[in-house]
């Protein structure tokens, strides 16, 4: 498996694990999320900010661990540069990012539907979160697809 595909698979798996872990932490372990709290816009603001910080920090740490693991595993082989991107890699990244942005924009538009219908703010935030999560995942899925099928 090419290093770029491995990175995409690694990203895909860690995104699911981090999101799942964070949701479990907020709604499972803490468990003191009452209905009034969920309806509060402040709760969702803190939720998204914490999630963003967690994702960025955890991804950096996990990527460093991934790089160390690859280095140890391929000690006796030709070194693969994890950061190197040629023109095909850049094209694949651009295409997959563009498609994932469409999902994010679509999700934002969909999130306006419950807001415009007068539903509580939680539905809007949940819709944005779901589509944001989906767009992140789909970016990696498209990368894997383009690497396998060609671009």
């Amino acid at each position, binding site marked *: 498996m090419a*290093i770029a595909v491995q990175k995409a698979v690694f990203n895909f798996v860690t995104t699911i694990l981090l999101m799942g872990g964070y949701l479990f932490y907020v709604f499972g372990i803490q468990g003191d999320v009452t209905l009034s709290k969920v309806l509060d816009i402040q709760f969702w603001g803190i939720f998204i900010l914490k999630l963003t910080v967690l994702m960025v920090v955890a991804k950096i740490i996990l990527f460093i661990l991934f790089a160390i693991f690859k280095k140890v595993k391929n000690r006796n082989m*030709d070194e693969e540069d994890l950061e190197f991107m040629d023109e*095909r*890699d850049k094209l694949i990244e651009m295409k997959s990012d563009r498609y994932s942005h469409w999902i994010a924009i679509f999700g934002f538009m969909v999130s306006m539907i419950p807001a415009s219908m007068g539903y509580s703010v939680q539905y809007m935030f949940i819709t944005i979160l779901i589509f944001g999560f989906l767009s992140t995942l789909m970016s990696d899925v498209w990368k894997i697809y383009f690497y396998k099928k*060609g671009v």
Partner: protein
Amino acid sequence: MSKDHIQNKIRMLRFLKGEMTQQQLGDEVGVTRQTVAAIESGKYSPTLQLAFRIANVFDVSLDDVFKYDPLNDQFKKKK
């Protein structure tokens, strides 16, 4: 997503250059082995710059590396 209208002779040219590996060619032109493999199998069409670099490695003209078949090219002409 193979591009049937653009064929190449990279495999043959590598053979003629002392069975040059995809990795060696990739190193020469600044791309990964996977990209060379994708170009060879027709899954990726290189940029003009990369195409010229590949031709330069084998010391041949661009036409000797890549062949374009307009009959298989499915594109819409601008009116």
